[in-house]
């Protein structure tokens, strides 16, 4: 009980820190690709000017302009700015929507296995919060729940931009849940388990799933991008068309919740793909790795996924709405179905 509480607290803390700095990394990466500098003014250089303990932070003077303080400055700004509420908003749905949209994503992390079981003070500690054994089902269910936050936010703000954004978002999320589910199902059939921890064990024994189920991997990656409202599927918040999409009317910490929720969604997608297709915490060419190396390997794989997302964001233009729908219904879903049937036949024959 206490252990679970500790684990979930740690998880949320680490997650928020990671998300804050991932935003900084994304801004720097996209800036590099566009041959700009990115945020490089805010740093921790001020710590080195403190009277006595400043000596400890002397090295930070050289990192003064690395932008490392930017996430903290952004966070303070978002906390302190006023949460404006439109006069015509439906009050309680409007207030609940950000919470509804971030909660399923945070809950989703409960089943992600970050590493192998470890021995701590003579106890067997699992490196995931909840042992459900129904991980993939649970994640899919939570993914569907996340749509409610988007719908409620768009409807309750009583604004045309928000409503249009939320309509688009809803249609997109529902369309891309199908190929996601189908592709995950073929992975489930292949590994003969619905638990992520067992999927990692399976991959330890039989090689990564990305090599045996490449099509499923691609479909899951693309659908996950769409689920997380990421470019090139960022139609719900197309800045040039819809101001900010379904959270146009939100400000302050409520907007930050949406923002964090979306980023965490991307992290969740990366973790799911890592656990299911990239071998989770297994280290390549390293049979029995110590547990901390496994955790590092997991983080590196998620980081690589995030980098590819950033790379994609600065490469591909936003899809047109009907192209988006065609891509899902006429492209991904048939492919995923064919893959599913082929995997099922293969599994039945063997």
């Amino acid at each position, binding site marked *: 009980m206490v252990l679970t509480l500790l684990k979930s607290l740690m998880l949320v803390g680490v997650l928020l820190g990671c998300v804050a700095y991932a935003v900084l990394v994304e801004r720097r990466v996209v800036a590099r690709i566009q041959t700009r*500098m990115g945020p490089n003014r805010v740093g921790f250089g001020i710590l080195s000017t403190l009277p006595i303990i400043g000596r400890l932070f002397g090295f930070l003077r050289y990192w003064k302009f690395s932008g490392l303080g930017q996430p903290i400055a952004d966070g303070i700004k978002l906390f302190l700015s006023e949460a404006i509420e439109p006069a015509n908003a439906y009050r309680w749905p409007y207030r609940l929507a950000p919470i509804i949209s971030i909660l399923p994503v945070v809950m989703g992390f409960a089943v992600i296995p970050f590493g192998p079981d470890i021995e701590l003070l003579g106890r067997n500690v699992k490196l995931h919060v909840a042992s459900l054994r129904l991980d993939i089902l649970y994640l899919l269910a939570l993914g569907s729940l996340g749509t409610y936050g988007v719908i409620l936010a768009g409807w309750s703000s009583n604004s045309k931009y928000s409503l249009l954004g939320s309509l688009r978002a809803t249609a997109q999320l529902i369309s891309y849940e199908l190929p996601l589910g189908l592709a995950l199902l073929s992975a489930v059939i292949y590994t003969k388990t619905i638990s992520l921890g067992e999927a990692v064990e399976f991959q330890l024994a039989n090689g990564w799933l990305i090599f045996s189920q490449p099509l499923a991997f691609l479909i899951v990656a693309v659908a996950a991008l769409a689920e997380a409202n990421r470019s090139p599927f960022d139609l719900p918040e197309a800045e040039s068309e819809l101001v900010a999409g379904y959270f146009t009317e939100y400000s302050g910490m409520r907007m930050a919740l949406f923002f964090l929720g979306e980023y965490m969604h991307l992290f969740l997608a990366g973790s799911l793909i890592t656990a299911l297709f990239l071998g989770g915490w297994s280290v390549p060419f390293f049979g029995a790795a110590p547990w901390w190396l496994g955790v590092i390997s997991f983080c590196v794989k998620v980081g690589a996924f995030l980098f590819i997302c950033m790379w994609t964001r600065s490469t591909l233009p936003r899809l047109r709405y009907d192209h988006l729908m065609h891509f899902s219904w006429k492209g991904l879903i048939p492919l995923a179905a064919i893959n599913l049937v082929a995997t099922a036949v293969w599994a039945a024959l063997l």
Partner: protein
Amino acid sequence: MILKSVYDGIKGLIAGYAVTITKFFSRGTTVPYPEKTPFVSERWRGVHGLFFTDNRFEELCVSCHLCAKVCPSVCITMEGSEDYLQRKRLKRFDVDLGRCIYCGYCEEVCPVDAIRLTTSHDYVSRGRANLILHKEDLIEIGKSAMRRGEHGALGIRRGDGKKVVYQENRNLDASFKALSGERVKR
């Protein structure tokens, strides 16, 4: 048919991703400005400076008023006088940087290349009055530019003394005439 379009799409995707990743690993052109000085061409038209002879002893200006005359934004105010050898010399020379458009006409028209635009581009002040540069300021700017080895926006390089300057100027006149459509006799 479908295979062809899929192939084309994948080819396009790979090409796009390749472009962005090469940009990611290439060195950008932006420079974090106050920490690192950006590259400025020698022909940059920055703040004006009054230049001296090569021994930095005598000022070049002969107070002919051509620069004040040619200035399209009328930012040069000058007053001449005679020195002890009864040569025309500057008494007063003000450039209003608030009015200047950095066209470089003053530099082009000057027969002795006394006024030149230096590469100093980061000239700021807290008040408009400070934007009017007087003779002493301009001499200071010119001297520091000479110390840096600059020759102004015309890119005039002196080989051995003053003659080269006039030679270069004549060539420039010819090229300007050619640009404006006049025939140049060779």
